[in-house]
């Protein structure tokens, strides 16, 4: 393999991994704190993308940058509504109930999106500042890809700082381990739960905005991304952000290289990988062990 194709592939891997990581991190964060798998998580991603296309259509040139800020916030607000109105009542219930409820939400959101934006494929142009290519080692690296990777890196650092360094992060971890002690010490536990969920939604929405210039925005995006995110979660281990990162990278590698080497079988590789991980370590690479 020539140097330029190595670089091209590497960037491809990192770009794929980046969007996937932002979505999976939100999913795993929510699971870690709320012990809940949100099947509608992909809906937040999709809405982030769709909202971006709407804003871009209205605002023209600056639309992208505005979307980058506004859309994740709007999606976060959606998340707050969902948590307060629906999920809050279901924390004590069985996992099945939670799965079914979030599955129902997926259907509802999908239908509303269809109403709001129709069936046609929408898109958004990347801002001119991010257009073009960057010459590196003989390969033409799209500037936008570097931007995507950069955003994901910032998110990763931000999450790490939040979780391990800040008081909030400490509180979130305590919520999982010892909610009664935390509540007794005066922390508003429900607020933290809502906040974490909103953060997870925001990350998914951000990922949607970021991916919109590179990919077709259309119905079915939600289901597509959630399956990939689930596989990342299974491989990396639920609740672990590091696991989400590693899992995303692995998927990135498999998808990118698979597309290059055996295009017709590529889409099946990630499932084979998941099967392999489940066969060896049924709780994912970084998940909590059983026995």
């Amino acid at each position, binding site marked *: 393999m020539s140097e330029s194709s190595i670089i091209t592939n590497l960037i491809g891997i990192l770009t794929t991994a980046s969007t996937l990581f932002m979505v999976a991190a939100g999913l795993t964060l929510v699971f870690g704190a709320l012990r809940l798998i949100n099947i509608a998580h992909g809906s937040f991603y999709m809405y982030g993308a769709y909202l971006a296309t709407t804003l871009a259509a209205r605002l023209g040139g600056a639309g992208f940058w505005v979307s980058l800020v506004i859309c994740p916030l709007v999606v976060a607000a959606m998340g707050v509504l969902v948590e307060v109105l629906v999920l809050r009542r279901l924390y004590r219930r069985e996992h099945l109930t939670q799965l079914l409820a979030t599955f129902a939400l997926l259907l*509802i959101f999908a239908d509303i999106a269809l109403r709001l934006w129709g069936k046609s494929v929408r898109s958004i142009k990347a801002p001119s500042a991010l257009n073009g290519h960057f010459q590196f080692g003989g390969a033409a690296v799209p500037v936008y890809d570097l931007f995507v990777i950069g955003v994901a890196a910032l998110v990763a650092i931000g999450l790490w700082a939040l979780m391990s360094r800040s008081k909030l992060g400490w509180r979130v971890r305590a919520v999982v381990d010892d909610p009664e002690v935390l509540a007794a010490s005066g922390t508003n536990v429900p607020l933290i739960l809502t906040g974490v969920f909103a953060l997870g939604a925001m990350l998914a929405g951000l990922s949607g905005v970021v991916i919109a210039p590179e990919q077709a925005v259309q119905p079915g995006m939600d289901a597509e991304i959630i399956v990939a995110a689930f596989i990342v979660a299974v491989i990396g281990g639920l609740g672990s952000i590091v696991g989400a990162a590693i899992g995303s990278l692995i998927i990135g590698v498999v998808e990118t290289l698979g597309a290059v080497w055996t295009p017709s079988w590529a889409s099946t590789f990630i499932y084979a990988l998941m*099967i392999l991980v489940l066969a060896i370590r049924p709780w994912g690479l970084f998940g909590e062990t059983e026995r």
Partner: protein
Amino acid sequence: MSSGKSPVPTASSQEEARVPTGAGAAARSSSLARSVATPVALTVLMVALGFAVGGNTLTTLEEVLALVVFATATNLLLGQAGLVSFGQAVFYGIGAYTVGLGWLHWHLSFWLTFFLAPVVSALVAIPVGLVALRARRLYFALSTLAFSELAYQLAESRYDFTQGANGVFGPFVPSVLTDPIKGYLFLLAVTVVSLLLMWKVTRSPFGLVTRAIRENRGRAQALGVNVYRHQLIVFVVSGFFCGLAGAMFVVYSQSAYPELLDWTSSGTPIFMAVIGGMGTFLGPALGAFIYQFGHDELVRYVSDWQLVLGGVLLLIVMFWPDGVLGSLTKVKWSQWRNSLNKGGSDE
């Protein structure tokens, strides 16, 4: 300790004291009579219904029957074993494809492929179950979902074998069955036999242990039950009947296509089981009726079918988790119990 003690009261009053119920044998034999009467009555009703309705409704009923078997088979995992699988559509699809591809590639007769379909599905269920069941509950659900997607991808991409996104179409259903009433009666017969078999599986030592595993996996293990192997068997049995349902679907649709396999398609029988009542045996069947006829009615007036479906599912899950039949039987059960003071139940 001998295992030969009969529950039927004998001459000895000491033996009688061992039976926990005042109603005793009487209650048991009357519940047996009820067990036989219900399926017979329902079957007669369904046959009569077939002759009473017109051609269009009859074809809808054919689809409902396939869904009844699909939903009941899924509930073996969901309600009985407590396993949430988003992958039962895989077996449903494999059942349908077995019939379609059997005709397409090897010109096999329908009658052969129809009965081969559940066997093929069961065989596929073995390796899928072996892998997926190693995982804890949520991981299990997620991996069944992924298997579903895998099956969908394979069906769509392996064009040479599966005809890809177009699906398999053709006259593989014999003309005797394309006649609505004959097709319906055939499917009804298959449905009744399948439901009886599945019912027996739940009302057996195997079924009892399955429920115990659902209630407390660790405790069942501490009692000597090999949980993994047991769950695998339930998974394969469920896959078997899901495959049969897929073959039944072909009688109605005369086609097989990739969308049958995808994970949102797995959601349908789950939805039916929840509406009808996961905790009861016939709940999913009722749910199938409600879903299909509800869908057909609503689609005429409302274009936002998914919204309604999602909304109804959400409301049921949040406020009426027992489903229709479940709520009804709960009320009935506690009333009956109160009246008998100590009614016996054979489960």
